[in-house]
């Protein structure tokens, strides 16, 4: 170790100089990553358990080569002098170095990887090179010399395969998780270094072994055969730069490590060190079914510490409504049975206790708009309706009313109902938004300013007089977008409608005048979904640019940007207490974000396809998500665990809704069915002990059949949206598909 320790300063200085050089040299490197490393082990890198002297020499030589390549001749001289290296020792490395050198260079632009060799579960993922210890240096610096010999990749992979097949059953399932990320990374390395034929051969030989749920990704991969193809593909670049997370038990990990070190299989070891994050847990190895239920996402599973932040999933306290008008008081008295002399009428749905629910956020954690008089009237209506609500359960299933859009040649792409089910909005592929009145009451818009002048302003029914009777109609069309409308959302006070479209804007429409008020430009790419907050004022949108944005209606720029997904954000929903936003994405994860500081508080993996629907339970504790793989997954937000899996649908699930009291979950899918599930039972059966709480490995009972309460077919109409009325009648909407 002497040689290296002599010049620690120098080495550090070189390393510090390296980040600046890199960022100047290759312009596309981002500022915050320090080194662009493509691949891992050179042929020349010493085996991990090998002689230290040899290793240090290799390291120094690698540093020398790097400096030479960047034409830092003075530094080269100094280093050579200090380390006592001779010319001859570099000769053998030169050929390899030059071979691999050109492969990197400009190619390393967006592939700026910060090589992190933290394998222990407590390791922090971010660390600058200067703080690294010895083994890491060799990995970092040796990236610039030749990596593994292309034909040998197949040998390495087959070797690992044979090893894993020979271990004990209990370890095999866990170690098989390695196959997919290793395969993809090795393939991408081959492609990146322009070994096209070897890459193709490698792919053909081993792609069939991968899990079935990765087939879509493999399709995309097999279309990438050249380095240029990789440049434009953001999703793959993110895959390369982020670490694929695996949960492996300690025993299995020891086995693997021992094997790789014995066999001097540096290639695989280095890939594991660079690209994989192995979250080690102590305990029983997981079974195949457990692993299968949690895996499938683009970045593996979620690190355990990610899901440990406290989430305030409780509901906000309902405000006490003072009833100002006399007629309301009369009616209120009838249903509440309270004496009239009471000044305030307590919300019958709110909690009776004055104590703060420990799981609920503070009332003023995020600023929320105050209640206007019209809102208070709405709340009173809500309470009245909820007294007439039907109690649902396994014996008492809801009736379903299906609104079929006939002759929707424009292509129905999004539907939303108001909370009181009086209005229905549809977004279409011809860029229009249409609003219908579901009740017999027609849609009216406010009169023009001139007409408003002549009305009598002091009359009692001024609110009716301002409405224009002449143009009252069942439906109104809103024009304005320049691309298909993919998401619509009503505001809780029924005054506004939001629509998000492929043209990259989110538009706010007034439902008083049926005109467009604001166009929020922020995403420059299609916006797949938008959702108003349950209290109004805030709304969230998610799109193709892989972020979700939080807006307020009176700010033309977003207030928060939720960045972190590896692929498009396809579904965005607010939590009932408006403090959290859930986003589902094409990278097959669901993330929960805190509105206050935009931190990602939960990452939930387990889906095998892009997620297209999300639903929070009314009590705020649980989240249901549906995706293209036809499964509905139930999550406990507080613990960040998967607590249920509902299998049954055969096609993408686009609609999910919990009933008003959370007893029934309704799901609608492209397979033309609506299914009702017993969510009460699913949530009751959750048992968490210490082990599951710490590791998140829960064994899910396969009880989808028992939980299924009913399945209802429509006549070839895929279900686009589901909505429970305040009295627990289920409304469904979809466009009739004549094929």
């Amino acid at each position, binding site marked *: 170790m002497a040689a290296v320790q002599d010049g620690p300063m120098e080495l550090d200085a070189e390393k510090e100089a390296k980040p600046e050089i890199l960022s100047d040299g290759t312009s596309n490197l981002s500022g*915050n990553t320090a080194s662009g490393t493509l691949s891992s082990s050179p042929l020349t890198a010493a085996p991990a358990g090998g002689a230290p002297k040899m290793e240090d020499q290799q390291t120094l030589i690698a540093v020398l080569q790097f400096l030479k390549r960047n034409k830092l001749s003075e530094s080269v001289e100094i280093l050579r002098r200090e380390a006592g290296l001779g010319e001859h020792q570099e000769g053998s490395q030169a050929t390899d170095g030059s071979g691999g050198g050109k492969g990197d260079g400009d190619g390393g632009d967006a592939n700026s990887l910060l090589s992190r060799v933290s394998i222990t579960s407590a390791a922090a993922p971010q660390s600058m090179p200067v703080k690294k210890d010895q083994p890491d240096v060799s990995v970092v610096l040796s990236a610039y010399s030749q990596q593994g010999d292309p034909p040998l990749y197949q040998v390495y992979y087959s070797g690992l395969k044979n090893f894993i097949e020979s271990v004990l059953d209990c370890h095999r399932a866990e170690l098989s998780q390695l196959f997919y990320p290793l395969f993809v990374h090795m393939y991408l390395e081959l492609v990146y270094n322009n070994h096209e034929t070897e890459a193709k051969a490698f792919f053909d030989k081993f792609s069939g072994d991968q899990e079935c749920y990765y087939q879509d990704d493999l399709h995309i991969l097999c279309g990438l055969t050249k380095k240029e193809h990789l440049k434009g593909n953001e999703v793959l670049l993110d895959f390369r730069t982020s670490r694929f997370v695996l949960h492996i038990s300690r025993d299995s990990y020891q086995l693997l490590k021992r094997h790789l070190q014995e066999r001097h299989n540096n290639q695989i070891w280095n890939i594991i060190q660079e690209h994989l994050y192995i979250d080690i847990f102590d305990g029983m190895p997981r079974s195949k079914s457990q692993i299968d239920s949690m895996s499938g996402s683009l970045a593996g599973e979620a690190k355990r510490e990610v899901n440990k932040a406290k989430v305030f999933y409780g509901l906000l306290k309902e405000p006490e409504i003072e009833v100002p008008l006399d007629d309301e008081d009369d009616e209120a008295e009838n249903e509440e049975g309270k004496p009239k002399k009471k000044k305030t009428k307590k919300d019958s749905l709110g909690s009776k206790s004055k104590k703060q629910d420990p799981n609920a956020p503070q009332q003023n954690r995020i600023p929320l708009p105050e209640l206007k008089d019209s809102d208070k009237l709405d709340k009173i209506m809500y309470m009245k309706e909820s007294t007439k609500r039907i109690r649902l359960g396994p014996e008492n299933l809801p009736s379903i009313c299906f609104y079929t859009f006939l002759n929707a040649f424009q292509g129905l792409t999004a539907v939303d109902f108001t909370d009181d089910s009086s209005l229905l909005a549809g977004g279409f592929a011809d860029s229009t938004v249409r609003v219908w009145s579901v009740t017999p009451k027609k849609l009216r818009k406010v009169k023009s300013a001139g*007409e408003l002048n002549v009305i009598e*302003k*002091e009359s009692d029914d001024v609110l009716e007089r301002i409405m224009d009777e002449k143009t009252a109609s069942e439906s109104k069309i809103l024009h304005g977008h320049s691309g298909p409308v993919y998401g619509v959302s009503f505001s809780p006070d029924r*005054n506004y409608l939001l629509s998000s479209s492929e043209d990259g804007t989110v538009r706010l429409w007034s439902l*008083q005048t049926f005109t*467009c008020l604001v166009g929020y430009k922020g995403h420059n790419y299609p916006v797949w979904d938008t959702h108003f907050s349950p209290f109004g004022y805030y709304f969230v949108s998610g799109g193709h*640019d*892989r972020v979700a944005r939080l807006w307020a209606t009176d700010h033309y720029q977003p207030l928060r*940007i939720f960045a972190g997904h590896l692929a498009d954000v396809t579904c965005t929903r607010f939590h009932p207490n408006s403090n959290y936003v859930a986003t589902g994405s094409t990278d097959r994860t669901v993330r929960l974000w805190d509105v206050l500081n935009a931190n990602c508080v939960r990452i939930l993996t387990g889906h095998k396809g892009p997620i297209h629907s999300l639903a929070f339970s009314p009590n705020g504790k649980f989240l249901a998500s549906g995706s293209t793989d036809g499964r509905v997954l139930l999550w406990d937000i507080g613990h960040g665990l998967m607590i249920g899996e509902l299998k049954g649908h055969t096609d993408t699930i686009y609609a999910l809704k919990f009933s008003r009291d959370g007893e029934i979950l309704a799901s609608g899918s492209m397979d033309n069915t609506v299914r009702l599930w017993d969510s009460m039972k699913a949530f009751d059966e959750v048992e968490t002990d210490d082990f599951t709480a710490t590791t998140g490995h829960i064994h899910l009972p396969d009880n989808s059949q028992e939980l299924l309460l009913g399945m209802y077919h429509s006549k070839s109409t895929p279900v686009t949206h589901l909505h429970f009325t305040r009295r627990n009648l289920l409304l469904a909407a979809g466009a009739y598909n004549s094929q």
Partner: protein
Amino acid sequence: MASPKTVPKDAQVMMQILKDMGITEYDPRVINQMLEFTYRYVTTIIEDAKIYSTHAKKSNVDADDIRLAIQCRVDQSFTSPPPRDFLLDIARQKNQTPLPLIKPYTGPRLPPDRYCLTAPNYRLKFLQKKVSSSVGRITVPRLSVGAVSSRPSTPTLGTPSVQTVGTKVGTPVSLTGQRFTVQIPSSQAASVKSATPTTPTVQNVLINPSLMGSKNILITTNMVSQNSSSDSTSLKRKHEDEDDYDAL
């Protein structure tokens, strides 16, 4: 789908590409659309490459030209979303600012007017004006504005309205009950130049622009009465302004 015998070779290639990418179900017209796209794209690239090669005074178009042509086109048409680290960076910046407090009782919460789509998007052309020599200057202009139908002027109620020298107000916002002016004062304060009290009901021909989203008529209904009175206070004619605007 057409039988393979009768399908041209290009279309067969396209069908094979779709199959390789895992797309099994598609409308038959998708192949035509994909082929059209392919032809157009390849033609554009090759034409660009020809230009580059003649610029470099080469006799033939070679791979470098094509590569350059592709690179230049990629930035124009096939933009991809920004890279992840860039997004994380801007997200970090944006997420540091605390959430703004919400002012109570502000009516419809919309961004500043220049970011809204509520401004009038038309100009009115003033046709004729009649100046009466009696008290004040009452004008009853007639209008002819395209598709907008002009209604007969409602009788002026009460006292005749008064001319004001309207100030040129910059913000072209919140259409009030104005009929024939181009620039409409947004705030009532701006238009109060004359000392005479305004009558709340000055009636004239009214235009009903179809695309108007008047801020004043908006959202919370309890604002209406307040707004209509504010409408009326600004119902002043500005002849001088009209002349100026006509001259524009």
